[in-house]
């Protein structure tokens, strides 16, 4: 079975400071990893994904994430936070294996609050 943990319910950061939203995962094989963002009363919007290749992936709105296989982590980062980054962030995983399920498993979400 695959699972995702987002250990922080909320992350607070001042505008202009770097931000990190943590994610760890568990799969039986190798993972596909994703980050999505949800603004109020909206669906989830895709931010970035790791499929293969470079461990550092860059996505929308200046976000990036680093795949760390030894730590089974895929933390989301941004060098300089904006107030408009305030939203709910979800990490998701899918096992690459041939017997993997066909759906993404999501973490519980982390609310990012960026203060001016």
């Amino acid at each position, binding site marked *: 079975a695959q699972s995702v943990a987002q250990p922080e319910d909320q992350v607070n950061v001042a505008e202009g400071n770097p931000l990190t939203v943590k994610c760890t995962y568990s799969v039986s094989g190798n993972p*596909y990893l*994703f980050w*999505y963002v949800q603004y109020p*009363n*909206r*669906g*989830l*919007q*895709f931010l970035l*994904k790791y*499929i293969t290749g470079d461990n550092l992936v860059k996505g929308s709105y200046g976000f990036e994430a680093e795949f760390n296989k030894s730590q089974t982590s895929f933390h989301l980062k941004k060098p300089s936070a904006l107030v408009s980054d305030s939203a709910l962030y*979800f990490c998701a995983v899918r096992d690459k294996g041939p017997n993997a*399920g*066909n*759906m*993404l*498993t*999501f*973490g*519980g*979400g982390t609310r990012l609050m960026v203060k001016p």
Partner: protein
Amino acid sequence: GAGVSQSPSNKVTEKGKDVELRCDPISGHTALYWYRQSLGQGLEFLIYFQGNSAPDKSGLPSDRFSAERTGGSVSTLTIQRTQQEDSAVYLCASSLALNSYGYTFGSGTRLTVV
């Protein structure tokens, strides 16, 4: 269409009534997924379709929940005899194929059972 469309966007219903939630995926997307997002919780997988077929219905919370997809396009999630614990945001997503990387989500239907 250009995106995944869900209707209604909001639904308030009385306990015990039946509701139907609709999802219109991106044109050409063969895979369609339903998730439920309860207040303060993450996303709970309900069911997926490959074409019109739903091979695994074990994610549906109870036998009051059913889903169908016709013509490889629109999907309907039906909840019979709604209960207060069914109150949640129901999210639909689609992807080009089952093994595509990631989904495109709709804006969801907020269901409130009173």
